[in-house]
Each structure stands twice: as C-alpha cells, then as structure tokens.
C-alpha cells in the first residue's frame, strides 16, 4: 500500500484527540492538583522538569570547567570577578566546581533521568495500565528526590565539598568538607531510586495486559525492569557505607581511615560496589529507548528481540561483578586484579550484541530521519566509541597508563553523555508529542541533533589523545604542551551547549506554536501510540489487547491527516477476546 491511500472499507482505528476533560494535563488545574497528584504521567512530567533543571545547573558548571582550562595556568577562575565575592583560591574554586558538576550530574540527573522521568510516564502506558502498582509510593519517591536533591546540593555548597563525586577517603574525611552529609543526601536520593525500582518491578510483573507475555513486552520495559533490579539490589550498599562512615567518625572504629587503623581502599570497594552497578542504572534504560527508536523510525521489526532482552538481564547481573576495575592501580592483589579484568571483558559482550542488533534492524528498513532517529544514530556512533575505548581500560597493561587520565574522562563521557544523554534527548523528542500533545519543529530538532553530535565529538575526542599522552584528570592547571587540545575541547563544549540550547528552544516553542499531535505521529506499534496524545487521565478505557509490539504492517500513513493509523482487518486479535473499542468521541474527526 503506498503512502496516503488508505484501503476503502477497512476499519481505521485512531483514538483522535482527547477532550479538555480527558487530557491528563488539563483534567484538573491548580498547583495542588499537580503537587498531590497520583497520576504517573504528571509525576513523570515533574521529574522531567526536575532532572532538566539539575542538568542545566551541572551543564553550566561543566562549561565553567572548560572555560577555566582554556589556558595552562587556568583562565576563568583567575578572573578578578571571582576575587570580589569569594576569597577561595582559583584551584579551590575549580575543585569545588568539578565536584559539583560530577555529583549533580550523576546523582540528580543521569540516575533518575530516564527511569524516573520517561519511565514513570511510559511504563504504565506501554502496559496498557491505568497507573503504576503503587501510585502513592510513586509520589513519595518523587518528594524524596526533591528533598534529597535540596539536602544534597545544600550539603555540597555549605561545606564547599571539593572531594570529587567519589568522596574518596581519607581525603574526604580529613578536609573540612562533610562527606557524611553528602553521602546521606546521596542515600536519600537512593531511597527515591529504590522505591521507583520496586514500583516498576511490581507493575511489570503484575499489570501486563492480556496477551502481553514477557517476550511480547516492548524492549524499553525489559530495560526498565533490569534497571529496577539493580536499583533495588545495589542502592542499599550506599546506606551501609554511610553507616560505616558514621560508625568510624563517631565511635572511632577503624574502617576506612588509616588514623584509626582502617584501610582507605575498603571505602573504594564499598563505593564502587554501588557505583559501578549504578553505571548500568544509567545506561540500561538508554538501551531500551534506542531499541524503540531504531525500530519505530525504521518501521521494521526489531532484530533479535530475545538477544536484546537477555543481554539487558546479563548486563544487570554481570554489572555487579566488575566494580574492582576502578581500582586496578590501588594495590589490590595480582589475582584479584586479574579476575576483575577478566570479568570486565564479559560485560562488553552483551553491549556489543545490542549494537549489532540495532544495526541489523536498520538493514532493509524504511527509515525516516526524524529528530529522534538522528539522535538514535548519533547514539550508535558515540556509544560504540565509548564501548570500544572501554577495552583499553579493561586491559591491565594499558589501564596502568590510562587510569586517572583524560582518557578515562573521555571514555565515560562517551558512555554517559554520548550514550545516556543522547538517548534521553532522543527519547524526549520521540515521546514529546505524546507527553504534551504538540508537534515540534522537525528542522530545528535535526539541527540540535547535529550540533550536539559535532560539539560532543569536538569536546571529547581530543581528550582521548590528551589522556594517552599522559594528561592526568582533575588538574586545575596543566603543562603547556596540552594547551591546544584543551582549547579544542573548550570550543567543542560551547558548541555542545549551543546544540542543547537549540533543543530546549525547539521543545519550548512547540508548546506555543506546535501543531496538535496525532495519537501516532511516528508509526509506533507499542501501546502508548494507541491512546490519544496526550493520553487521557486513565490512559485506556479498558485493558487493550496486544500483539507483537514490533509488528508494523498494519500501521498505515494517513497523508491527509498527517498521522499513522491502525488498519483493522490485518490486526491480529487474541482469540476469545473482544477488540478494544475506540471511545465514541474518537470516531473519525477528519
């Protein structure tokens, strides 16, 4: 069937547009209707606003870091303006700024970004459910996040924390900065993360609609499920670390501090036992988004569904066994070091499988280079570099040289920014019409994807070279031989910032000037595209019947109304079940 001509006589299903009373954004109004809402969609949107603000703050701090490193002796924090409102020395300001940048990015943005913001919005809708299993717990975890964020950021500011986001002892316990308060903040945020994970596990286990077996779930749900398992199992370790720190400070029991016969490396074990799985909390949901994006915008069945689903679980489990690779130079025994190196290599396999499967999904597809697809392809490129450079760090001989240099900085930015952030942006652009009911300017979105891609590479590619050449990380000043590479990196970061700004403007403009979004603007087959944009308060009148979430042949482009619609005769129904009826208001409005 060619584009624009719908078969005569076929039953065309399209939910149409929501009325003002149905639309979850307008169904009730007033500040309290948002503050005390139990609606997962509103909570998701509040998270989205929260993590975006955190990202904005931490991103500006990143620009400050890059501007400081414009010249070998430091530029930005040496400006006289800083002398006027602080008596800290430039090096101290630099150290506090990179600590804040890392801590806010990790604990307030990357960890909650996809699971809490997009996950909250999408998990119940993708399941055809009305809400998550425990809506009150969901609201509670949002407020824990808000409270934790305020507590954490004020602890960092009040004590001028300059330890790096890892809070390594004994440096963190011997400076005047308060590691206990900061860890407590991180742990409150951790609780928010545990509750969200718990909620999703129960929701996915118990609330799948008729017909949605485990292997008929959208891959985003598989990714969310794996992430939730890690959140529930790993985060409590952060609490244990906190208790041990307090026991040491208060009762002087030697655990981490050599002053009381403790061992600082023990702290690193505890810290990374949480923080390494946390790396997978950050990247797994991104994998889920990319699986959806590539398949929908290629209009082709995802290739190797089971391999992708299993590899998420494999990563979640193996991710618990590799924390030691952060400590290859710390002086662990040779045997331990070698075992951790071997285990580290095993994690690379499931990640590689996913990338191969995504590429195979595009093969012989019907690809539309929409904004989300541009971000998805950008993700593939950047994440591949991030993953491959991980091999240099998992290999012991080369890690001894590259550890704690800019090579590491570049590597994890390729994974965390090139991976998670780019996937997050792709996801936001993909589901934006669903979330707010407005289409954005496609050209503007594509420009933002291109700027982000170019700016990001210009920022971080030179850092691989710097690292190989021996430039240590966390240096406020550096040898002049690195000046040119640092300056390239700074120019790149400004370009990256510009790209992100364009993305923000494009999305905000859509709220005022965007066209009304159809229920299914991209031709997706998962359930969120079967309800109106934005979804009604209760998502679905009754549990919809589901088939294969990646079966696109019954979805047709309706040229005259610029929307994709489901064409009924080809739709597979589960025997014995009635087809889901479109609500009365939604009959053909065109």
């Amino acid at each position, binding site marked *: 069937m060619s*584009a624009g001509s719908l078969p005569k006589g076929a039953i065309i299903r399209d939910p149409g547009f929501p009325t003002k009373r149905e639309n979850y954004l307008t169904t009730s109004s007033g500040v309290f209707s948002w503050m005390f809402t139990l609606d997962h969609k509103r909570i998701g949107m509040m998270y989205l606003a929260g993590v975006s603000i955190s990202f904005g703050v931490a991103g500006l701090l990143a620009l400050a870091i890059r501007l400081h490193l414009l010249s070998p002796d430091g530029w930005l924090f040496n400006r006289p303006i800083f002398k006027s409102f602080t008596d800290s020395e430039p090096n101290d300001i630099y150290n506090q700024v990179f600590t804040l940048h890392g801590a806010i990015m990790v604990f307030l943005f990357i960890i909650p970004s996809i699971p809490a913001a997009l996950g909250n919005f999408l998990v119940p809708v993708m399941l055809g459910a009305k809400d998550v299993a425990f809506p009150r717990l969901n609201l509670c975890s949002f407020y824990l996040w808000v409270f934790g964020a305020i507590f954490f950021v004020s602890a960092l500011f009040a004590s001028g924390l300059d330890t*790096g986001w890892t809070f390594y002892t004994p440096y963190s316990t011997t400076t005047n900065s308060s590691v206990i308060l900061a860890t407590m903040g991180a742990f409150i945020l951790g609780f928010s993360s545990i509750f969200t994970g718990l909620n999703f596990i129960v929701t996915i286990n118990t609330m799948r609609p008729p017909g949605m077996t485990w292997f008929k779930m959208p891959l985003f749900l598989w990714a969310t499920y794996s992430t939730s398992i890690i959140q529930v199992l790993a985060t409590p370790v952060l609490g244990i670390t906190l208790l041990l720190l307090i026991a040491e400070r208060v009762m002087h029991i030697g655990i981490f501090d050599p002053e009381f016969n*403790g061992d600082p490396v023990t702290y690193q074990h505890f810290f990374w036992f949480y923080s390494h799985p946390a790396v997978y909390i950050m990247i797994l949901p991104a994998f889920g988004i990319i699986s959806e994006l590539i398949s929908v915008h290629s209009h082709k069945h995802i290739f190797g569904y089971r391999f992708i689903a299993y590899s998420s679980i494999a990563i979640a489990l193996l991710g618990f066994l590799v924390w030691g690779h952060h400590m290859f*130079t710390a002086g662990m025994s040779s045997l331990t070091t070698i075992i951790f190196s071997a285990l580290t290599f095993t994690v690379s396999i499931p990640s590689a499988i996913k990338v191969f499967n995504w590429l195979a999904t*595009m093969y012989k*597809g019907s690809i539309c280079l929409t904004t989300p697809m541009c971000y998805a392809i950008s993700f593939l490129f950047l994440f591949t570099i991030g993953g491959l450079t991980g091999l240099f760090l998992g290999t012991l001989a080369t890690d001894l040289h590259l550890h704690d240099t800019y090579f590491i900085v570049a590597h994890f930015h390729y994974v965390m920014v090139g991976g998670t952030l780019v996937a997050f942006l792709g996801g936001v652009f993909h589901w934006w019409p669903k979330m707010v009911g407005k289409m954005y300017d496609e050209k503007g979105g594509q420009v933002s994807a291109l700027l982000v891609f170019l700016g990001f590479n210009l920022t971080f590619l030179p850092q691989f070279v710097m690292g190989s050449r021996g430039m240590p990380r966390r240096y406020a000043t550096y040898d002049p031989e690195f000046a040119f590479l640092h300056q390239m990196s700074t120019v790149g970061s400004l370009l990256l910032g510009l790209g992100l700004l364009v993305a923000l403007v494009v999305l905000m403009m859509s709220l005022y000037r965007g066209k009304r979004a159809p229920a299914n603007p991209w031709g997706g087959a998962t359930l969120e595209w079967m309800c109106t944009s934005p979804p009604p308060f209760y998502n679905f009148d009754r549990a919809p019947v589901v088939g294969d979430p990646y079966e696109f042949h019954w979805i047709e482009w309706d040229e005259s109304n610029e929307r994709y619609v489901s064409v009924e005769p080809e739709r597979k129904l589960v025997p014995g079940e009635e087809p889901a009826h479109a609500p009365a208001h939604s009959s053909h409005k065109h």
Partner: protein
Amino acid sequence: MTPNLHEFMFSSLSIPNLGSPTLLADVNDGFWFPTQASSFAAEADWVYFMILWICILFFVPMVFCMVYFPYKYMKAKGGKAESNVSHNTPLELAWSILPSFLLVWMFIQGTWAFLDVRQPPDGAYDIGVQAFKWGWTFDYGGGTFHPELHILKDEPTKMSMRSADVIHSLYIPAFRAKKDIVPGRYNFMWFKPTLASEKVSEIELNNAKTEFAKAGGTWDYEKHQFTPDGYRFYDLYCAEYCGKDHSAMQTVVVVHETRAELDDWIKQYSTRGTDSLEVYGEKLYNRRGCASCHSLDGTKRTGPTFQGFFDRKHEFVDGSSITVDQNYVRESILDPKAQVVRDYPPVMPSFKGQLSDDDIDSIYAFLQTLSSSSPTTETKAETVAEPTAATE
C-alpha cells in the same frame, strides 16, 4: 608461564609491527604517546595499538552501516520495510561468540604485561618515596633525600612508597607506569628505564643559572626544560586527586647513563659537607618540599610565610600564642600537628626520622637569616611548657 615462552610469544606477535600507528609511536613524542622510556612502555604501547586496530576493524564497518543504511533505506512516510526478518539465531550467535575470542586474546596480552609490572626482580635498586600534600620526597638511602627522582638506565628500580596524608598516585607517562600511594600501607612499583636523559650544554646551563640567581624564587622546570643540574627530564605527576594543589604536585625523573654519574649526583646532595648551616638550610628548604607551602617573600600559601619568622607572635588555633624559638621550630618539624597556627589547615606531614639534628639546625639557621630579630636562649625554657600544656 615461563618468561622465555612469554618473550617468544610476544616477539613473534610483534614482528609485523602493525603499520602506521606504531610508526607514530616510534618517533619520540609521537601523536598518541610520550617518549617510550621504560621497558614496560614498549610492551604497553604494543597492547594499546593491538586493541586500537581491533577496534578500528569493528568500528569502520559499523560506521559504514550507520551511514549507509539510513541513506540507502530512507523512504517517505508510510513506506514499508523491504524485509521484516525478526531474528537470525546462527548469525546472532556468531556475532556474540566470535568477538569473545578477540577479547580473551586482549585479556591475556594485557595480563601478561601486567604480571611483569607486578613482580619486581630480585636485587632491584630500591628507592623510598614519600608523597605528601603537595610534593614528593625520594629517599636515596644514607640520609639523602631529594624531590627529583634520579635513576639509572637499564637498572630495574623498585619504589617503596608511602603517603603522609591522603591517597596519591605516582605516574610517569614516559614509563607508562602508575601506582596509587595509600596512607597506612606501603605500595610498591618498579620499572626499568631504557632511555637516558640528555645533558644540556654548559653554556645553556650557566645562562639559566645566572638568570635564576637574578630572579630568585624556585627553579622553573617548565620554562627551562631541564633540571638545575642540567638534565633533560621526564614528567612525574600525581594522578590521584588530593586537593588544592593536586595539579602542582609534579616533579621530574632523570635517567642517568652510568652508575658513576648517578653516584656523583647523589653524593652532591648527601651531606652538608663544607656548606655553612645557613647555606645548607636553604638547600633543604628547597629540596625537602618546605618551599611548596612556606613562602620567603610574605605571600600566603598553605602554611605561614617564613619571612620575618622570628619577628612576630604566632597565634594558634587553640588561642595560645608564642614567639618562635628553637624548640618551637623543632617541634613543628617533628610533630607539626601539636600546635597549628590559626587560619592554616593542619596538613604538614611529620619529618620525624627524615631530618637529622644537623638538618634541623641548618633549617633553623636559615630561618634566622630571614628575620631581623632572633630569639634569646633564655626565654626558651619557659615557652616549652606552655605549648605542650595548650595542646591538651
């Protein structure tokens, strides 16, 4: 595995030399790496380029797919996919399992080289290292300490490292060697330098020395690109974040061609010799890391300035105060945290067992030259009791 087998495997694999990136690495200070100056550097770089080529082997076809597929299969909205194959198990198994062999190979190569680095050979030349906020002291034995690391070409050298305060990490990019220094324990590392440092011409050295004598202050390694003794050097960095002056916690490595040359250098710094107390005290001030925290010109650094040291009253965090005398100087060097001057952090490491009585006397004599007044011996007895009482 025997070293012989290792050598055999290693050399047989490295024969093809893997083309252009290796060429880049072979020139001193290539695009990717600094000079290869230790036996381990060549090994690590070889593993690096092996991984790099494997990565390129995968990356190029993958990028080709990323670019070519969207170009080739781009269709207008509503177009249908040409194929809807949902999986191909043999293909997927192949691309899951086959790359694993390459990973195993990488792991083995990396671990082999790593085991070499872990086991210092018997009879290696042992140098003690003390890392502190923010500097280095190398212990050459026999009471000789110096902030520069001087070692011998082709001589396996073992570093026995300890930290006076927080975690540091000794990193010499030219040697591709790095090891954390964790307080509360000794950490060890070793390497065999293979490339001796050049010596600059006498004329160049003399010019720099005259300039230095005129300008005063501390020797600017970055500007001159050679040490005050006229040697070119390799950089030595602290790689583990350790606070305010982390990025300034750098020193230099000089590799000597012959043992005689190294011995001469060490002898030059071993004892006071014929120097007067004052002159030797100034050398210790520069050599033992005092200079990084205590200025001579009144600028405020991490510690109080030594300018007019005996002219002012020193106020401590506990509220007490004294006028400096010989005992106070001694106590501050051996037990710096007993009395901490107000507005300064308690970060100075103890030099107990590292400075002889003669060394301390020399420093004291040097400090006296910086003040107009000097303490009288009579007041000494009274002030000793006071600070001790105040500590409790």
